[in-house]
């Protein structure tokens, strides 16, 4: 088997890390010290929003996982088991996926003592359990699983005028035909060779990515075109981050105009709440949301500033009123054709993003009982700080006011030409995006 030099290096680093950290545990046991792991806490309460660097980070709290603590014993065993599986794979030049690992570690522990009821349990039952232990290993070692050569399904794709080295091969991302390069699960092992691009456009939807690719968008506008195909995986996020970090390219995110699309943007920009420990390496704080905006659909005249004053803090209302007004890209007739009614789940998610007070201030008369119930259930939710900006509040406000959402495909079906040659370039040119 020919292994790339890059992989070899990473492997050796991983093996060293395991020997160092777990060798210490063994040493402690031999010295009569109880087996204990100190792991940074991965809980919401230990997740902090770093205002300065604009991303979610793990807080200072540590979790003491002692083997002799009744409630932690199983978790401790699982962590040891997981460490042995990953270590074994590293040593044996393997590339397990998280699913492989789940199966490798899953077995039954049986206590069969005479005069005692037989006890039986599995090391773990669902993959979510073993995934969670992988995350524990990541924070314990301070390393991402990709760097331990644990793979996951490739999801993200990229095309553009650039050449990279992956493994020992050089790949030209401008020569992918109608296809695209799948972003490998270990993007840190990619080396950027040469790039001729002005910006990065990340498209949420694979279908829209393909349309723009075939249209020649990236050639025409000197773009690196990427799709996350829905919720971005870690590799895509790390890849985007590196483009932004190392090449200084601005990153634009094009997503649906609905709470789900906004959340995808948020994951690129800030990180995900459940995996805040990797934000430092995965988040792209400078990512820009280029659309689709609610204001692109409805314009800004639909907002009644006076109404907002009743329920929102005056400084926010003041800031919103100072934002430049916008005209809609869609006509009244197009809106009627493309708009989709928001569902209760959408409303709930929107409130989680920007806070209950915005919903309360902007909602009109809601007739739908299910939506009313969804709203009541979220009373008092404060919203995430990075969505409490006037630009976002204006977007969300229009959403609550109209209870409408819109997919990017709607803009594309108005005409690919419109999307590629007018909507995107014009928005970039006029700075019509939100950070």
């Amino acid at each position, binding site marked *: 088997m020919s292994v790339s030099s890059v992989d070899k290096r990473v492997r050796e680093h991983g093996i060293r890390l*395991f*020997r160092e950290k*777990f*060798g210490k*545990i*063994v040493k402690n*046991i*031999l010295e*009569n010290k*109880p*087996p204990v792991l100190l792991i940074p806490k991965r809980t919401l309460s230990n997740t902090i929003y770093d205002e300065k660097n604009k991303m979610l980070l793990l807080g200072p709290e540590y979790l003491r996982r002692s*083997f*002799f603590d*009744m409630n932690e*014993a*199983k978790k*401790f*065993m699982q962590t*040891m*088991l997981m*460490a*042995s599986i990953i*270590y*074994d794979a590293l*040593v044996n030049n393997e590339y397990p996926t998280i699913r492989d690992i789940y199966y490798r570690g899953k*077995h*039954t*522990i*049986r*206590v*069969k*003592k*005479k005069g005692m009821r037989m*006890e039986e349990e599995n*090391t773990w039952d669902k993959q979510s359990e073993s995934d969670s232990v992988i995350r524990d290993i990541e924070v314990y070692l301070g390393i991402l699983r990709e760097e331990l050569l644990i793979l996951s399904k490739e999801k993200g794709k990229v095309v553009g005028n650039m050449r990279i080295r992956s493994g020992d091969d050089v790949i030209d991302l401008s020569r992918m035909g109608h296809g695209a390069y799948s972003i490998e699960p270990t993007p840190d092992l990619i080396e950027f060779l040469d790039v001729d691009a002005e910006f990065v456009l990340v498209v949420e939807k694979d279908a829209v990515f393909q349309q723009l690719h075939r249209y020649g968008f990236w050639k025409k506008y000197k773009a690196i075109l990427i799709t996350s195909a829905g919720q971005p995986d870690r590799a895509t996020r790390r890849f985007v981050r590196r483009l932004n970090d190392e090449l200084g390219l601005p990153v634009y995110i094009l997503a649906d105009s609905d709470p789900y699309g906004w959340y995808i943007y948020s994951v690129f920009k800030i990180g995900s709440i459940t995996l805040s420990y990797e934000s430092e390496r995965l988040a792209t704080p400078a990512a820009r949301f280029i659309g689709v905006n609610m204001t692109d659909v409805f314009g800004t005249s639909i907002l009644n500033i006076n109404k907002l004053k009743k329920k929102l803090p005056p400084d926010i209302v003041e800031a919103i009123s100072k934002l430049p007004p916008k005209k809609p890209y869609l006509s009244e007739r197009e809106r009627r054709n493309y708009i989709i009614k928001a569902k209760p789940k959408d409303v709930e998610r929107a409130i989680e993003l920007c806070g209950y007070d915005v919903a309360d201030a902007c909602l009109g008369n809601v007739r739908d009982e299910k939506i009313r119930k969804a709203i009541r259930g979220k009373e008092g939710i404060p919203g995430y700080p990075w969505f409490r900006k006037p630009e976002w509040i204006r977007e969300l406000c229009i959403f609550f006011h109209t209870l409408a959402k819109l997919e990017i495909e709607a803009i594309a079906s108005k005409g690919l030409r419109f999307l590629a040659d007018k909507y995107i370039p014009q928005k970039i040119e006029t700075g019509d995006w939100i950070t």
Partner: protein
Amino acid sequence: MATTSEAARFRHISPAEFFAKYKEIAGFGNPSRAMYQTVRELVENALDATDSHGILPNIKIIISRPASSTSSNHYTITVEDNGIGIPPQHVPNAFGKVLFSSKYVQRQTRGMFGLGVKAAIIYAQKTTGEPVEVVTSTIGSKRIYYFKIKIDLAKNEPIIVERGSWRKSREWHGTIASLTIEGDWGRSARRLIIEYIKRTAVVTPYANIVFVTPDKQVYFFKRTINKLPPPPKEVKPHPRGIDLTFIKDLIKSTKKDTVKDMLVKNLQGVGDKIAEDALRLAGIDPNKSPHKLSDDEIKRLVAVLRGIDPDYLYRLQGSVGEKTVAEAISENIVGIKYEQAIAAAKEAGIDPQRLYAELSEEEIDSLAKALKRFYPRYKAPSSESLSPLGEEIIIEGLKRIYHPEFVAATTRRPSAYQGHPFIVEVGIAYGGKIPSRNRPQLLRYANKIPLLRESSDDISWKVVMGLSSRRAAAEIDKDKAMREFWSQYGVEFPAPLVVLTHICSTKIPFTGVGKESIADVPEIERELRLGLMDVARKLKRYLTQKKLEAEKKRRVIVLAKYIPEVTRSLTIIAKDIFGNGIEEKLRNKLIELAAHRIGIEQEEVKEIVDSVETGV
């Protein structure tokens, strides 16, 4: 049954009169109750004839439908014991003449009414017309005697219908008594009788008890201990516990020539000095013939002997009108002169010229204390007359019937109320085969007799249910109080809990005529409470220990079962650093550390670790 006593110790009343008066009270109100009561009378006599005389009882109870009878509701109840037997010359009177047991001597016996089995015999005679059949032989007698006896109700004389005797062919002694009555073996009678026998079996683990029902079902309670409770001794009555009837009876039967001698001979702890003092106070010449005492003198004598009773002093407040303290006391308390009343009042810190009716409770208590100085002092009543079961027997008995996982018992030291000695015993059984219930299952006993009817005004019931007699019962949530009380001892309901209370005394203070519940006597309540707390604390210790043990076991298993996996996993990484021998070392070290942590032997952890299989 006072079968061995002298004839002089009995006195007669008309049986017809007696039965008319006591039929309901004695428990013969309906066929179902009559059946139960008949079983009780016979069983209690059988036990008294055995365990009180140092004999390990073998009791056989058979209820059957007589073959000869035409009526379907006639039942024959036969109880056989291996007791001391009855001398043949006493048999007719013992079964055929209604007598009251003598009270000249006191000792704790089971019979509660003093009527004994005779009520059942009269009931049988009235309902089925059948005589009582008795087969008996005393220890050492060479013959067995056989009688059929009826009672001449008008004359209160036994009628011997049949009699006979034969030579003993084997060494047997005891009594077989058989009665045919109009009865009932319906659900409630069946339940009551079986429960009675079961509860009797609880306190007689030293007895073999066989019970055959009319349906030919057999219950057998096998003897599990060969130890008998010490038989009660006969003691003279304590002067504080006597009454008018007692003195009058005494006068009738005494052979002494002087009152003084009569008192000294027949009362507990009364010597020449105390007798003289008492008689002087009562204003009676010690050398007077007992037969010449006037009614008034007898009354005064009883009052002095019983001593100063604070209750009487309270009651007096309602009847003395406008009298001053000095007047009220000197006019109503026998033997206290006006000057003595003044002195006592002053000693109690009370102005003797105040109105007696206006005294507070505390003042009356102090006054009673001061007055006692003028009265004879007695020793506390002797408890030799009492026969407690003893802790061992209670524990054994609860085990035999309930098969609990934990059992404890306590016998309190003797105490006394109003001149009557008593001993409280409390047993507790928990878990095992006891079914869980929403409150403690309470087994009450008085003088070894089960009290079956659950009664919420019984003092044991109150104590065991965690109710204080001081609190107004209506004001509190009883169930909550009960749960809170037991919760202190680690018992959360529903729980498998049985509590046994036994009060033995020469006089059980029953409430009312039903004789099923015991009155709120503060001295008894105190002893019950202390006894219950004692056994409940033992239970708590047991439960805490059990919980700890369970927790420990749990911990051992939880930790031990993961040791092989942790060892194997760590070895995969560590063998490259520490070499191949590391697996064994790690395993032993983890076993050692775990054992140390939990506080058990390494061997115990190792055993579980060795029993772990990790499959794929």
